[in-house]
């Protein structure tokens, strides 16, 4: 049974999902830091 392509698809999909979620966390962190900086200036 040749399921290699499914095996790699599953592994890649796993890291794409985690990577996407981590990217949203990084974006949210940088937005909040920016907001804090603006509040600090005021």
């Amino acid at each position, binding site marked *: *049974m*040749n*399921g*290699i392509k*499914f*095996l790699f*698809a*599953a*592994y890649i*999909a*796993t890291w794409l*999902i*985690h990577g996407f*979620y*981590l990217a949203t*966390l990084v974006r*949210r*962190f940088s937005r*909040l*830091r920016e*907001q*804090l900086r603006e*509040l600090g200036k*005021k």
Partner: protein
Amino acid sequence: MKRLFPILSVLTALLLGYALYLALVVAPTDALQGDVYRIIYYHVPSAWTGMLLFLINFVASVIYLIRRSQKADILALVCAEVGVVFCTVVLVTGPLWARPVWGIWWAPGDIRLTSTLVLWLIYVSYLVLRRFSNSAQTQMLAAALAVFGALDVPLVYFSIWFFRTQHPQPVIGGGGSMDPRMLHVLLISWMAFLCFGFLVCWSRFRLELLRREVEEAHALESLAGAEEISPKASVPLSRSTK
């Protein structure tokens, strides 16, 4: 604390790399399924980690309902969000494994598959509620939803013990058997995903603390602005009524 996070991140990355090496190179090939069975080393640890996070969400929600603890509320939110990510991995890798082995992507009506999808939908609803509701009761409603939602966790886990399903029987317990070398790799892989999940939860927890801090600062700022515009508004009620 500041140094601990990068150290743990490096250790987790190494552990994930080692688990990947074990899964792809060291673990023996399955006699029936061939190499595609190696999806188990991502599919099953993700499912266990996700269910563990949902159980923590349940405990934190109960603590919030009893004590109104903000930290418990944050923990519940964090575990639900990261749990949904792991559950998404399960729902994506499952069909990718099913297609070459069963010949179908999804088995409609299968209790394990359906209850997992329902579990995912319950926690997505939980996150939608938390994200878009502005009511003062949101935290309490979300905690109540989490308590009821957690009832699906044991149903998902034990469904393959008590019902005949397309999904394979449990590999650990429940009469299942697995080659000890495969089991070793599976447990290392789970440990790696647990560490990864813990680090992601830690980051998300810090993010939520920061978000609430910013929200509070905005509220204080607008309060100060309102007082500047209308100084009378800051006069205590007892004096203003005289």
